[in-house]
């Protein structure tokens, strides 16, 4: 616990120290990143201890805040979530030292590092806080710090717009959480988590409040609208932290609240499965239709949060129908996917940042042929893509496999699940399969258009590989993806205590699904064999080629004369067959001026896919609110005298009313 407190102090005090280095970019870079590294390393000590099976005693101090107390604790559930937070924060800090270098002297980087460390500390505090007041405080610090990080390049109109959307969304979420905590702590004079217990009538309402409040942060559809705006706007290492781990605090909060609500009725599981399936499928569909690399990745975050939520839903259904094996597999897949998504999504955002850093554009259609100039970035992006698609032998497969196993087990005969549970399980399996397929299509598009072929613009033609400080974190993350990918059974065992916390059973009575472990062992063996085979083939190839001369030629252009790189497939043309199929959701707008006459001079074609919910749900809702509120806008007339007069009048009326 001492390490944890020291780490929190390090993040918050060290963040302030960053501010003190304003005006000296070199010092700022060192102080900012080392604070993040030291703070992260300090907190990793208790986290690893808890993951290794040790039980720490919590900290409980008095706090003068009403209903508040400084209650900190690190249990297995917290440890599962704080591990990715700390690792990603540390790696992204190293990456940030180089990524931010072009801004040195132009922007106030001390401020950026201050908010970065504040964000890191507050995320850690969110997962270890055991008091509602402390939790909400940390939650708000987290939201505000990330808001300031998102609006780093605030001289651009689009970035400011994205910042506002994020700020509004996150505060709507917090409003729900406030009500939730008041409801939970209603019967006591304290908001300590240990005293939380929802009376039966309120459990359903509390669950819905938690789903909306935490779901806004986690990016469940339709509350996801801030993700595709905020992630592209933020600097890439911040996107990696936000998308990789910050949105996971929403999942953490939801799971933590579920532990207070007693045994779940089946409709909770159903609701989570539906929300997860909708987020997953629509998330990946919208990702498919994007040209902006970071917006594409942001939609994939929505998709993966959907997968995590489906896992939670399966877990809850398992709890409702007294099937501990299904519950175990659902939660295990969900928690492991939290870790995995943190790893590969950060990896993808960091490599996307590397591409953007090199080429200066986020538009996929302007890239092409980058693999020749950025081999490391290309390779890690490929690994991240395979991982996010849930393909073996990488880590995304392991966690999705667990969720598959959970849902298929509940269908398989001897679990005695009611028909509704079986339908939900089939929905999960079907959605996962669809999501996986679409994700493969999407990342084939992204990787193919960006890294293969020829450069489509001068941006792409002059890219350069990033420096060591950027390549190293990416390499570490890629290695972590492979390691988790081939050590599945180990992780299932490691997650046992956290699942025990989430499902509310004692660790020693927990049922460990050995058949799943066997299946995972099998997969591991196959994965290792596959990797070995690929290695062998590569070795054979290099041996065969070593004696011959190898020349580099342009890509074969099918024999057409005088083709240019602009004639290559674009991102939208590649995705067109799929997007056309799902146009009912996507509503892609095409702007097409066709070539006319026999000697056409100019023609153009462009597509744009706006967010369905943003356009047809939130924009009308906010327009209506604005129209309603503008009716009382005359009250803001700008005459100071009259403002003061109305205040005095109100005071006098109250006074006379009270006296008279």
């Amino acid at each position, binding site marked *: 616990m001492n390490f944890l407190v020291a780490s929190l102090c390090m993040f918050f005090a060290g963040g302030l120290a960053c501010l003190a280095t304003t005006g000296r970019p070199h010092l700022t870079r060192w102080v900012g990143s080392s604070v993040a590294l030291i703070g992260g390393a300090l907190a990793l000590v208790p986290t690893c201890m808890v993951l290794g099976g040790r039980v720490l005693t919590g900290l409980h101090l008095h706090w003068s805040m009403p209903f508040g107390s400084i209650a900190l604790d690190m249990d297995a559930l917290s440890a599962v979530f704080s591990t990715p937070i700390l690792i990603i924060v540390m790696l992204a800090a190293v990456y940030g030292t180089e990524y931010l270098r072009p801004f040195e002297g132009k922007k106030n980087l001390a401020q950026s590092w201050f908010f970065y460390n504040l964000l890191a500390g507050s995320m850690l505090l969110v997962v270890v806080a055991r008091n509602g007041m402390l939790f909400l405080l940390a939650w708000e610090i987290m939201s505000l710090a990330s808001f300031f990080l998102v609006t780093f390049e605030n001289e651009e109109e689009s970035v400011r717009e994205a910042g506002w959307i994020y700020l509004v969304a996150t505060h709507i979420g917090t409003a729900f959480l406030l009500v939730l905590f008041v409801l939970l702590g209603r019967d006591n004079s304290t908001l300590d988590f240990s005293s939380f217990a929802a009376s039966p009538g309120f459990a359903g309402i509390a669950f819905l409040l938690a789903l909306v409040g935490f779901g806004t942060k986690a990016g469940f559809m339709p509350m996801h609208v801030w993700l595709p705006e905020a992630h592209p706007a933020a600097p890439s290492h911040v996107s990696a932290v936000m998308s990789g781990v910050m949105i996971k605090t929403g999942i953490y909060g939801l799971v933590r609240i579920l532990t207070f609500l007693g045994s779940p009725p089946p409709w909770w599981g159903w609701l989570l499965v539906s929300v997860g399936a909708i987020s997953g499928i629509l998330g990946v569909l919208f990702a498919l239709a994007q040209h902006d690399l970071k917006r594409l990745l942001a939609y994939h975050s929505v998709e993966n949060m959907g997968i995590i939520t489906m896992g939670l839903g399966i877990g809850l259904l398992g709890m409702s129908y007294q099937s501990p094996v299904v519950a175990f597999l659902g939660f295990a897949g969900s928690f492991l996917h939290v870790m995995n998504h943190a790893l590969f999504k950060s990896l993808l955002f960091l490599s996307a940042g590397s591409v953007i850093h090199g080429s200066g554009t986020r538009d996929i259609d302007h890239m092409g042929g980058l693999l020749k100039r950025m081999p490391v970035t290309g390779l890690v992006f490929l690994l991240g893509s395979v991982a996010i698609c849930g393909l073996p032998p990488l880590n995304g497969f392991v966690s999705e496999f667990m969720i598959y196993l959970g849902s298929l087990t509940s269908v398989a005969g001897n679990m005695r699940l009611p028909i509704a549970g079986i339908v939900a399980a089939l929905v999960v399996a079907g959605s996962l399969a669809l999501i996986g397929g679409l994700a493969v299509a999407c990342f084939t598009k992204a990787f193919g258009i960006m890294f293969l072929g020829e450069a489509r613009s001068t941006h792409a033609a002059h890219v350069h590989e990033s420096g060591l400080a950027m390549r190293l974190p990416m390499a570490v993350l890629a290695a972590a993806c492979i390691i988790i990918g081939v050590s599945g059974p180990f992780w299932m065992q490691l997650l046992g205590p956290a699942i025990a916390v989430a499902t509310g059973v004692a660790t020693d009575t927990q049922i460990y699904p050995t058949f799943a472990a066997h299946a995972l062992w099998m997969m591991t063996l196959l994965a290792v064999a596959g990797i070995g085979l690929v290695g062998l083939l590569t070795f054979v190839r290099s041996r065969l080629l070593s004696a011959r001369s190898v020349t580099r030629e342009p890509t074969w252009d099918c024999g057409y004369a005088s083709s240019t790189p602009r004639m290559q497939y674009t991102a939208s043309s590649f995705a067109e067959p799929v997007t056309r199929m799902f146009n009912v959701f996507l509503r892609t707008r095409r702007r097409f001026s066709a070539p006319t006459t026999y000697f056409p001079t100019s023609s153009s074609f462009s597509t744009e896919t706006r967010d369905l919910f943003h356009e047809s749900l939130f924009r009308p809702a906010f327009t209506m609110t604005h129209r309603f509120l503008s009716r009382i806008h005359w009250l*803001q*007339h*700008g*005459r100071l*005298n*009259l403002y003061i007069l109305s205040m*005095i009048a109100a005071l006098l009326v109250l*006074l006379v009313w009270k*006296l*008279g």
Partner: protein
Amino acid sequence: MTLLQDTLLVALILTSFGMLVSGRLGAYIRMGALQGVMIGLLPLVVGRATPTLHVVFVAAAMIGLKGLVFPYLLFRALRESDTKREMNPFVGHVPSVFFGILALLGSFWMDARLGFPIHSSAALVIPVAFTTIMIGLFLIVTRRTALSQVIGFLVLENGIYAFGLAIVYEVPILLELGVLMDVFVAVFVMGIAIYHINREFDHIDIDRLNTLRG
């Protein structure tokens, strides 16, 4: 002592009325300064025979600040901001005086209704304090320039100070100095704000500041 106190209180009200009718900014500031001096003298005569040293000290500080320093600052702001010397208020002088009379009556009514547990020797202080507060608020609302609003704020503060004096005999010196400090800072900040408003808009008429609204 009572005679002296009542004379002072009546004079206090008269200065407030004087501010309601003064047509020129210079006279307005001078009247404010006069009221400051009187409010400074008030603790020396209210409710006790021989004032203690700390009361004398506070009174001196009060007179020094409100009677000398503030008028000096305000006159300087007036000079530098090149404001018109005429007041030209939103509400004319005659209606203003009517409001003053209403405020006086209302204050006596309120005092009767509220029934503060205070020493009978200071009985008149409360209604006078209420009147001063209300006239101060009225001045803030109805006068045009930012400068006259600052003075309205000072009048308001005078009223609050007199009210506090009537309620609590032994005000800790730190508290009083704290209040003084507050006002000092307020006047200082407002002085700077006036300077900036003037530089930005070439005038300090607050009714034309509404172009700033969003």
